[in-house]
């Protein structure tokens, strides 16, 4: 959820993005932490997409808080950096089940002894999980990633009000829950790791029939809870007031949940060392990092600007305060397959070959902020498989572009009638392009412009505020030929969460995420009132993506996605991927243990520790 669409979701203030190094920083701090103290985080903006109601909240920053501190799900993660952080582990479930019926039936047994935080206090049962799914299926709650659960049997009947329960979710007793699906879904466990599926007590949540409301009174199932939970009166909905520790425009304060029992959890998932967490809004980005350096704050939800990172990295005694982790995100330029000159695959290949990726990386803050990307899905999501890590179909010296190779491709295209390696026809001049108006986006524009100019393509770039940029790029009728500085990040570690961007089913008139329009058919085009140029046939990866999605055996599945990634890069060429972003954090010297949560691409809040005596106040 990093750049591009992510900026929108994360709000104007948070530049979660960054893009970074693969080598430096990262990993956990040496030394073991001690219990106690408050871990103090500041952010320019929470950027919640659904007011912190887990049913609809679709920002990785919130997921990191839920997973580490407030919301336990059937399946979770170790919450560490790298490939290990993307491995699934049982959390509320006693163990990971083996599916039956061709990956269509999944039965879980819940751990016993897990209780809700005050004021609910009771044991968590399978009904509370089923209720969470009923909320996801309720249209008025606007569950933003409800599409991951649409193939549960009886889902639509419940959503339309025709059924009282979801037929495919059964809870024969308090500690058993069974999901029956209508199609094979080998990555269903991953979907159960998303926070919307965590248990929700009906006695509280029933008071919030509209999207976002429950976020103000979220009842924890994790090691911490929102301050004021103990004082909440839940005798009737009239007495349920917003919790005192949470105000979406200023703060989110968490304290220990007295009902949390570490014996129901594992230390590899949550060590829960600090006594409290504070997430406070400070709209002044520079001030946040000054306060971190002064020891007044310990961490930030937004990345430090390159100017601050540079001054700290130059100082050997402070260098360790910069921490990074791969964001499992790709920054890319999206080319529209229906718009000249990008309706010609040779032009798209030439664009890949001419692009100065090192320049773009530098514009983003240098290697610390992200590694050069050479294909669609970040390597971590392929478990750093050797068949893909060195793969670069458009390798150029120094990744700075290769004019000869690009010109050779351009000569093959219909837009170079004179075969001189540059495009001189009108279609290549003043090509309408859209980008954001954040500092980083604007920094990237001249790099792209000067690279493309070498093969005769000149751009008419619109630098738009983030929300207008998203709206323009995602509106099919606007026919944007080139979308610069786009970004995508995973929802979970399966490559399908990237490949969905190229499926024809993702094309929609507004809110379109398949901006390249891969798989667009003539009938779909006429439905959307756009046209496919004469003589252009648009490739489809629908069948291959479905085949990979249905493959269960882990190794075969991964090989299938890798082959599809390579096919996209070589035979479809919808993008110029250029940076695999890192999340960069600056922490205070009071932080004794810090780890990166790969699954949520943020600080592993469940594994941090502070030394209160080093904290300034």
């Amino acid at each position, binding site marked *: 959820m990093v750049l591009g669409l992510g900026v929108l979701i994360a709000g104007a203030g948070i530049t979660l993005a960054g893009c970074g190094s693969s080598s430096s920083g990262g990993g956990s701090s040496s030394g073991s932490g001690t219990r106690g103290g408050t871990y103090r985080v500041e952010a320019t903006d*929470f950027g919640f997409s659904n007011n912190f109601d887990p049913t609809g909240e679709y920002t990785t920053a919130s997921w990191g808080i839920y997973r580490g501190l407030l919301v336990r799900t059937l399946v979770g993660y170790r919450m560490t950096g790298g490939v290990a952080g993307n491995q699934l582990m049982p959390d509320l479930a006693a163990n990971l089940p083996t599916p039956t019926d061709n990956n269509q039936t999944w039965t879980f047994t819940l751990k016993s002894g897990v209780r809700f935080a005050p004021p609910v206090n009771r044991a968590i049962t399978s009904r509370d999980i089923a209720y969470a799914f009923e909320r996801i299926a309720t249209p008025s709650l606007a569950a933003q990633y409800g599409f991951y659960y649409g193939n549960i049997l009886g889902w639509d009947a419940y959503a339309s009000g025709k059924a009282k329960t979801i037929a495919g979710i059964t809870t024969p007793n308090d500690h058993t829950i069974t999901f029956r699906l209508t199609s094979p879904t080998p990555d269903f466990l991953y979907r159960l790791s998303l926070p919307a599926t965590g248990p929700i007590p009906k006695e509280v949540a029933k008071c919030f029939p*509209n999207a976002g409301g429950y976020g103000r009174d979220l009842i924890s199932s994790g090691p911490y809870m929102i301050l004021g939970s103990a004082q909440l009166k839940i005798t009737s909905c009239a007495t349920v007031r917003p919790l005192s520790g949470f105000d979406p425009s200023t703060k989110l304060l968490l304290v220990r949940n007295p009902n949390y029992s570490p014996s129901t959890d594992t230390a590899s998932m949550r060590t829960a060392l600090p006594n409290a967490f504070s997430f406070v809004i400070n709209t002044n980005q520079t001030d946040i990092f000054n306060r971190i350096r002064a020891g007044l704050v310990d961490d930030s939800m937004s990345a430090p600007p390159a100017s601050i990172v540079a001054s700290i990295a130059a100082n050997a005694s402070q260098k360790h305060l910069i921490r990074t982790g791969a964001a499992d995100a790709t920054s890319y330029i999206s080319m529209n397959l229906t718009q000249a000159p990008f309706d010609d695959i040779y032009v798209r290949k030439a664009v890949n070959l001419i692009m100065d990726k090192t320049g773009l990386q530098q514009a983003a803050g240098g290697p610390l902020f992200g590694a050069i990307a050479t294909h669609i899905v970040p390597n971590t999501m392929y478990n750093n498989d050797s068949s893909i890590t060195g793969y670069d179909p458009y390798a150029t010296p120094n990744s700075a572009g290769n004019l000869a190779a690009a010109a050779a491709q351009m000569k093959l295209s219909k837009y170079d009638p004179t075969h001189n390696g540059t495009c001189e026809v009108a279609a290549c001049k003043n090509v309408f392009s859209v980008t954001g108006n954040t500092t980083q986006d604007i920094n990237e524009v001249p790099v792209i412009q000067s690279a493309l100019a070498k093969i005769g393509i000149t751009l008419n770039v619109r630098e738009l505020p*983030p929300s207008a940029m*998203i709206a323009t790029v995602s509106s099919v009728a606007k026919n944007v030929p080139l979308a610069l500085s786009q970004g995508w990040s995973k929802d979970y570690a399966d490559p399908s969460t990237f490949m969905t961007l190229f499926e024809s089913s993702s094309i929609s008139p*507004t809110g379109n995420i398949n901006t390249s329009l891969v798989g667009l058919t003539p009938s779909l085009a006429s439905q959307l009132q756009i046209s496919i140029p004469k003589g252009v046939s648009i490739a489809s990866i629908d069948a291959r993506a479905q085949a990979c999605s249905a493959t269960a055996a882990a190794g075969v599945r991964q090989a299938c996605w890798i082959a599809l990634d390579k096919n996209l890069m070589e035979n479809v060429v919808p993008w110029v991927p250029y940076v695999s972003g890192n999340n960069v954090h600056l922490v205070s010297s009071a932080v004794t243990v810090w780890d990166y949560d790969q699954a949520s691409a943020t600080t592993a809040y469940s594994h941090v520790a502070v030394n209160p005596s080093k904290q300034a106040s």
Partner: protein
Amino acid sequence: MSRYILRRLLWTIAVVLLVTLVTFVIFYVLPSGDPALRFAGKQPTPQVLAQVRRDLGLNHNVVIQYLLYLKRLVLGDSHGWPGLGFSYSTGAAITPQLWQRAQITLQLVLGGAVLWMLIGIPIGVISAMKPRSLFDRASLVTGLVFISTPVFWLGLMLLWLFWSTLGWLPGTGFVAFTNNPVQWAQHMIMPWFTLALLFAAIYARIIRANMLDTLGEDYIRTARAKGLRERRVITHHALRASIVPVITLLAIDIGTLIGGTVIIESIFNLQGLGNWVLEGALNQDLPVTLAVTLIVTIAVSMLSLLADIAYAYLDPRVRFK
């Protein structure tokens, strides 16, 4: 007089309606994007988009939306009165935040106004007393330099010099007076000066010109002829007459600045109305944009009305006509 005030009040209401209408047209009818997209997740399905539009009240046609907005404005909504709705970004009611942010803007503007009057009046008076003197010429040129200085550049230069290079003052941000008066003043001093230098220059020019006009009038000559000391002539007669028009100008400037400190607030990161409306406009947080526009328009209209009334009461020449 009361008929005049009534007519002006009616006109104010008309202006407010027109300005909200234009705001509505620009931000709702000619939208640069769909605000619902921001709250429909990164893979928005048509169903979720439709639901979010309903939640934000964007499902009606724009005319109905505008009428509903006016209705809520007059009758109040679930967040109380006036019904300004809730911010799309935070889901929180607009009204309490509006007052909170207005306080910060007022602290900036009023502090700045005091400062520019303190700088502008003496310079204007001294220049007028000795026109074409070295002081007069120097102050005219200096004034013109400040009138020509882009405020954002002045702000950045001050930050660079006093914060980044010398480290004498804290950087950007705001500390409430009730939390720590010293830090409050330290944080406000650069924004105040950034605002005040431009206006001090303008006001010094105006006061100088007014003083020169007044000093040429008959009653001043009479006062001098009576043998009053020059000092007394200046303070009791000339200054009073020259300052009256300035006070009315001050009221209008303060009104305009309530919505016009966007750039200073964004440079110094003061979370006042200006910063808020900028965020609202850029992020398509339509209720915020509308609420601030509304408040600012009302403030400008009311303060200019007050200025006119004050002028009528304070200036003897106007009163006797």
